[in-house]
C-alpha cells in the first residue's frame, strides 16, 4: 500500500463516523463535511466481507478491496433490490487489492463479496446518506447504453456491407490487371475497414490476415491482405525495398491475393451479421480510444500506407469511427460528465477542421508525403489533444 492511500485511509477512519453522525440527511447545510468521503476498505475472506463503514455520504466513493482469502473474489455494490449491480470489481486474485470507484446517490444498497465467484455472495446493508456533493441523476443509463449498443452494431453492419461491395470491385480490378482502377479504389474501399477496425480486431486473426504491414511480419510468415496488394500497386524502388529489386506478383499471385481479401472480408461480414454479435458499451468506448491510438502510432507518422501514401484516408476513417462511437454514447456522457462531452465535441471539431483542410473521403486527400512537417505536427497535436479526454470515455459511461 502506498503512503498516500494509507494516509487517506487514516483520514477516512476519522472523518467518516463524524460525517455520518453530524450531517445525516442534511442537504442544505454544512457542505464541507458532506464532501469528505475517503476510501473505504473491504476485506474479503472465505467467510467474511468486512467493509470499513456501513454508511457514506452521497458522492464519489472508493472501495479498496483486498482479497485476504485463498480463492479469487469479486466485490459488488448492489441496489436496494439486491439484484441491480451498481458497480463491481472482478477477478481479484488472493492477496491482491483493487479499487472500485463509484458515484453513489442517497439510498439503501448492499455490499457483497463473492469468494470463489459462486453463490449470492456475503452481503451486508450499506447506506448512502444525503450530502451536498451533487451526483447527477443519470436517468435510465441502462436503457441509454442498450440503445447505444444497438446503434453502434447497426453502424458496424452498415460499414461492413459497404466494405464487402467495394472490396469485390477493387479485387476484380486488381486481379484483372486494371492497376489504374485498383489504385483509384484502394483508399476509398479501406475507409469502411478503418472506421470499424477495433471490431475486426476483436475477431482475432482477421485483422492480421487483412491488414498486416510488411514490417509486422516475422521471418517465414506468409503475407496476405491489403498492404501486400498496396505494395504491388505502388511498386517500390530497390532503395525503398531494403536494397533489392521488387518482384511484382504474377497474375496467379494477384488472383490469390485478391481472393484472400474477398474471402476474409466475407468472414468479417458473417461475424458481424451473426444474431449473437454484440458490441458492449465498454468495447465501444475502448474502441474509440483504440482508433485514435491507431492514428497516433500509424497514420500520423505515415507508416500505415508506406507505398500508397493514402494515410490521410485512413486517418479520417479512424476519426469517423471514433466520432460515431462517441456520438452513440453522447447522451450517457452528457448526463454523467457534461464538461467531458463538451470538450470531446470541441476537440473532434478541431481535428476535423485540420483534416478538412486536406480533403475529404469524397474528393480525396493530400498524399501524406505532401504534408509539411509543421502540418504533420499540428495534426499529431490535435490527435493527442482529443485522445486524452477520449481515454476517459469508457470509465465515464460504464462507471456507476
Amino acid at each position, binding site marked *: *500500500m*502506498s503512503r498516500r492511500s494509507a494516509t487517506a485511509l487514516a483520514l477516512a477512519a476519522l472523518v467518516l463516523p463524524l460525517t455520518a453522525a453530524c450531517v445525516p440527511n442534511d442537504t442544505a447545510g454544512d457542505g464541507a463535511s458532506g464532501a469528505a468521503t475517503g476510501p473505504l476498505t473491504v476485506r474479503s475472506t472465505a467467510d467474511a466481507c468486512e467493509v470499513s463503514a456501513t454508511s457514506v455520504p452521497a458522492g464519489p466513493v472508493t472501495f479498496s478491496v483486498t482479497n485476504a482469502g485463498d480463492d479469487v473474489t469479486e466485490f459488488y455494490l448492489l441496489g436496494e433490490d439486491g439484484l441491480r449491480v451498481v458497480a463491481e470489481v472482478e477477478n481479484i486474485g488472493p492477496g491482491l487489492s483493487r479499487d472500485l470507484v463509484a458515484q453513489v446517490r442517497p439510498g439503501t444498497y448492499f455490499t457483497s463479496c463473492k469468494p470463489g465467484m459462486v453463490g449470492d455472495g456475503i452481503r451486508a446493508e450499506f447506506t448512502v446518506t444525503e450530502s451536498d456533493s451533487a451526483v447527477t441523476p443519470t436517468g435510465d443509463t441502462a436503457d441509454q447504453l442498450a440503445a447505444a449498443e444497438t446503434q453502434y452494431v447497426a453502424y458496424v453492419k452498415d460499414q461492413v456491407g459497404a466494405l464487402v461491395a467495394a472490396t469485390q470491385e477493387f479485387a476484380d480490378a486488381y486481379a484483372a490487371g486494371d492497376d489504374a482502377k485498383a489504385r483509384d479504389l484502394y483508399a476509398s474501399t479501406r475507409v469502411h475497414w478503418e472506421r470499424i477496425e477495433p471490431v475486426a480486431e476483436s475477431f482475432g486473426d482477421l485483422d492480421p490476415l487483412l491488414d498486416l504491414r510488411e*514490417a509486422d511480419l516475422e521471418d517465414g510468415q506468409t503475407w496476405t491482405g491489403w498492404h501486400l496488394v498496396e505494395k504491388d500497386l505502388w511498386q517500390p524502388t530497390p532503395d525503398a525495398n531494403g536494397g*533489392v529489386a521488387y518482384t511484382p506478383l504474377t497474375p496467379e499471385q494477384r488472383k490469390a491475393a485478391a481472393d484472400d481479401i474477398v474471402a476474409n472480408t466475407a468472414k468479417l461480414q458473417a461475424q458481424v451479421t451473426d444474431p449473437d454479435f454484440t458490441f458492449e458499451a465498454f468495447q465501444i468506448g475502448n474502441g474509440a*480510444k483504440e482508433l485514435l491510438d491507431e492514428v497516433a502510432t500509424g497514420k*500520423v507518422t505515415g507508416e500505415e500506407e508506406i507505398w500508397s501514401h493514402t494515410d490521410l484516408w485512413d486517418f479520417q476513417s479512424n476519426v469517423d469511427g471514433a466520432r460515431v462511437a462517441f456520438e452513440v454514447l453522447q447522451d450517457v456522457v452528457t448526463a454523467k460528465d457534461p464538461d467531458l462531452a463538451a470538450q470531446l465535441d470541441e476537440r473532434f471539431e478541431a481535428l476535423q477542421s485540420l483534416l478538412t483542410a486536406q480533403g475529404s473521403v469524397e474528393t480525396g486527400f493530400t498524399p501524406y508525403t505532401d504534408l509539411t512537417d509543421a502540418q504533420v505536427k499540428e495534426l*499529431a497535436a490535435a490527435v*493527442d489533444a482529443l485522445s486524452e479526454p477520449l481515454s476517459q470515455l469508457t*470509465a465515464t459511461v460504464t462507471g456507476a
Partner: protein
Amino acid sequence: MPAPTDPHDEPTTAARSAEPAQPGPGPAMSRRALLGLGGGIAAGVAAGFGLARATGVAEPATAVAPVSSGPGTYAFTGAHQAGIVTPAQDRLYLAAFDVTTTSRDELVALLRRWTTIAARLTQGLSAGPYGPASGPYDAPPDDTGEAADLPPAGLTITFGFGRSLFVGTPAPDGTPGTDRFGLAGKLPGGLVELPHFAADNLDPARSDGDLVVQACADDPQVAVHAIRNLSRAAFGAATIRWTQLGYGRTSSTSTSQRTPRNLFGFKDGTANVKAEETAALDEHVWVPAGAAAQDTTDSSWLTGGSYLVARRIRMRIETWDRTSLREQEGLVGRTKGEGAPLSGGHEHTEPDFSRTGRGGAPLIGVDSHVRLAHPDQNEGVRMLRRGYNFTDGNDSLGRLDAGLFFLAFVRDPRTHYIPMQTQLSSHDGLMEYLEHTASGLFAVPPGVPEGSLPLGADGTPVTTDDGPFVGEALFA
C-alpha cells in the same frame, strides 16, 4: 587490478573471485585522492555525491548493499568479466564500434590498450599514468579529466565481439561479408544473425557493430568518461558506430536490490537470474565448455563467457498513458503497485497460469507479457537481464523517444532469446505499445585472469607488448 596504494584494496577474496565483488566500504574517496593528487577536495565532493544518492528514487528501502551507500570499486579481473553479475548500477553508457583497421595486430593492440584503461578506470585511476592535470606541458593530458573529482561509482567495463568481426557484414542481396582478421574459423555457434522478429523496425545505423563496450556506473559522468577515453584510445583502429545512454536500471541482478520500474511504470525483471543463484548462472548465463564441442568452428575461447543481447525498445508511452489500469495490468499480467502476478500473492509469488476468474478466463491472460516471457512457456530458459530506461530527446511530433534498452546475458541466444522473442513479438499484447528500433548481439569473452596484468613503476596497470587482454584466447 587496483594499485597497491588504492585504499579500497582490502576486499581481497570477494573482490577477486568470480563472485560479485562488493565495493570497498571505506570512506568516500575520489580518484584524485587515490592518486594522491587532491584528497582535500575529495571529501567535499564525495559528500555531495552521497547526498544526491540519498534523494534517488531507486534506493533500496534497507540499504544493505554497499554499492549504493557510497563509492566503490569492483575488480576488473576474474574468471568472468565484471558488469554481468555485478549488482546493476544505476547508469549505463554503451558503445558499439566498427573496426577501421584491417590489421589483426592493430586490433590486438587496441584490445590491449582497452584492457589496461578499463583496469585502471574501474579502480578509480585515470586513463593514463599522468592523469588529467599532469604530464608534459606541451602534450594533451592522458585522461580527459571530467571524472577527476568523482568517486569510482562502481564502474564496470565489459567488452564483447559482434558477428561482423568474424565474418564481416553481408550485402542486402545476401553476398557474404569479408573475414578481415582471419577469425571466421572461431565464430561461435550462438553468434548468429538474429531473425527479423514481427514488427521489428530496426535502424541499421544504431544496430550491430564489430565491438561493444558496456560501461555501467552509479554516476553517468563516470560511465561517459570511460567510453570517451576508450574511444580516444581507439582512433585509428576503431570508431564509434552507435552509443546508448541508460538510466534507472530496469533489472536487479542481486537479491539485495529492489526490483526497479520501467517507463511503463511496472516492476521489471522480477524473475531475473540473480548473482546469488550460482547454479542458474551456470545453466543460463555462462557459456559451458561443452558448447564449443557442438560448434563446427573453434569456439573454445568463449568458454566461461556469455552472449549479450541488446535491443533498443521504444515505448509508445503517450498512448500507454491513456490506457486503463485494467488493460495495463492485463497486458503485463501483474499488478502495477506491488508487481504481484494477477493470479494472486506477492511480487515473488510464482504466477499460477491455470487459475481462472470470471467466465473461466485465465487471470493471467494468454497474451500477457508475464505468461509469454515466463520460463514455463519457454522450456525453462532464463536470462540475466541488465537493461536500462532511456530517453533520447523527442521525435518531430513532440513525443518522447523513450523506452527500454534491453540488455540480457545468456549462454546461447538460439535457446535463450530467439524462441522467446519470436513468441513475444507476435503474441504479446504489450507489442501494441512497443517498437524494437535497434538490435545487437555480441559474444562476451571470459575475464582477464586475476593478478595477470602488468604493473608499471607506480604500481598501476600499464600496457606492454605481451600483456594479457580481454578476449586473448580468440587470437591465440
